[in-house]
């Protein structure tokens, strides 16, 4: 507000209970391997997009699971779906399908513009 010269900052805290985790549920239902991620970061390390930008598939997974969807949307489209991540994943997570499903979920949802 003009009169004070500052505004109330947004809390960085993830508010798990009030976040919308429907995107995560959509993926859990269709790609059970989504549960298997142990956040090793192998996918992010091999990622072509990750070499050029701050895109991290590992972080994306966790943000979807926590319902931090706005941050996910920004990054989702950067994925090239090349599939290197699948080959390096030690837990057999179908990472490409998760990206595709996330895109689908956002498209189907009315609350997000992708």
């Amino acid at each position, binding site marked *: 507000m003009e009169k004070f010269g500052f505004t109330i900052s947004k809390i960085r805290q993830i508010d798990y209970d009030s976040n919308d985790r429907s995107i995560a549920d959509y993926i859990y239902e*269709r*790609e059970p*391997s989504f549960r298997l991620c142990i956040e090793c970061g192998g996918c992010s390390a091999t990622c072509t997009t990750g070499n050029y930008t701050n895109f991290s598939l590992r972080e994306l997974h966790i943000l979807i699971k926590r319902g931090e969807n706005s941050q996910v949307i920004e990054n989702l*489209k*950067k994925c090239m779906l*090349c*599939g*290197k991540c699948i*080959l390096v994943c030690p837990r057999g997570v*179908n990472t490409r399908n998760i990206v595709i499903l996330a895109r689908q979920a956002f498209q189907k949802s009315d609350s997000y513009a992708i």
Partner: protein
Amino acid sequence: MQFDPFVIPFNIGLYFILFYVVFRCVIWFRGLSRPDKLRLQRGFFGNAFVLSLKEIFLESLLHKKILKTNIRLGYMHMSLAFGWFLLIFFGTIEADIFGTKHLNAPYKAIFFRYFNPEHGRMGFEAAYGFLMDLILAFILSGLILAISKRFYSRVVGMKKTTKLKLSDKIALTSLWLIFPSRLLAESFTSGTYGNGSFLTGTLGSWLASFLPAQQMAYPFWLLYSLSLGTFFVLLPVTRYMHIPAELFLIFMRNCGIKTGDKSGTYTEVQTYSCSSCGICIDACQLNFSAGITNIQPAYLMKAIRNNDDVSEIANNCLLCGRCDQKCPVGIELSPIRMIQRRVGDNENVFTNIYKGYFRKRLHNIPEKSNGQLSYNFLPVTDPEKVDVLYFAGCMTHLTPSIKNSMVKILDASGVKYKFIDEQGGVCCGRPLMLAGMDKEARELINYNSQLFWKSGAHTLVTSCPICYKVFKESYYLGVEVLHHSQFIKSQIEEGSLKMNFLRKKVVYHTPCDLGRGSGVYDEPRFVLKHVSRLEKSKFDDENSLCCGGSLANLKLSSGKKYKIAQDTAAELTKGNPEILATACPLCKKTLSSATETRVADISEIVAEALIVTSVKRNINKQVSSIRELANI
């Protein structure tokens, strides 16, 4: 006795289906693009028409392709289709010759015996009756096979049979009833009048010996008429629509119409032409290795016809192309599947006749893209000018030995080349296309194309069949695109590569995208024969298996991928080869984890066999200097 009310169901059915088919064909025709309409018009007055008639006879009636793949299944289809055709054909002639007058209404031919019960006692009439009984027996033999297939599919040599919906079940029952009811109707009539040939006569007299044949005949004629009528009326909403649709399909195909990247009349006709024979199910590795039995083309076609949500089915496929190779109707299954994968591109969603054809087709207008680029973060680079570009591809970077081997081979070949993605490149775009995201893929294609053009290269070599296929099909680069097996072959032929013969027993696994996908079969074999003892396997060339790792399948779990890889590797290594060779980094990576046998890319084997001349020269020098030393 020229008419009886029992023929009414048949008449209704027949005229309905005739009208429907004509009507449907007109709609299909109108749905074609202008060039396709012209193709069809030209074809009608040209060679295509004759060719189509021949193909219809061979495929729609005789079912030659099914006979080749599976003789019992072929016989089943043939006996029903060809037998029925013969029955109508000779029945019409019979009615024409022996009837009261010429040019009879169709029902007179179909129910000839009812209207001419005294007919066929002796001479030519009896001989003709014998022919008609023979044809009926032919059909009934196929029918017995069909019924057994429904209850126990192994009878016809099939592992899986297709699942049916309710309208299909009713149509199937009426189809099954047609010929037995005709047999019984004719038999009772024959029994009453004491005529009939070996089948109807014998059965008729036997039945008449303990049943009131005269009273029994009429209900069966009515049943016969009802079954025919029901079958015809239900035809448009069942898989039996494939009977008329296939005729139209054959004609369209012969006129040169192809499946595009959007759905339209041709894809619609193709979907209706699927008879759910189930040959694709048998060919599918997801079925016999991974135990997934609901995503095969027969089910996809059915789901599309039923307007079901097909995304799960469409995305759960290796796109290995084995089914395309096997489909007896020649439906372009993989292109149709790809159409279903394209997001927001399903503007031609099928509408079924019973849901009201006059309802307007669903036009899902794809959302206008906001023009924002997805990959605008990619750096612009200026590559040096070279003759040959080597693009290893993403997957090759995860199998570094292929990359290193290729560098060795390229160095040895002496061509002026540049390893364009040595520091990691940008994806070729095919994985995006496989996920139905063509717009995004186009961005990557443009990016890579710019890069290739700037280098001024005339040849682009890649190690990855996935990249190779997309470079060939979707890049329009205007330069020669080679898979490394092709490049190695050309270098061998030019004499730039010298190799030892390794004497190792090798079996070659054809990668799907290289083989069935791009038609490259001979070059890898040529190279392998050049350096090793290449053995044959049951799954060579067109019949090759998928490794299971295919990027085309977006749904398959890692465990099931592994199952497929294990089965494929086990099949290929039955002859205990020393090396299981392949020509794809992804195949190599997938198969390596599933077998104890060494899995190697062609490039690795070639690099192993390579005689590097520069090293040889050095050795020569040393030897000569030793000689010199000895001389001193």
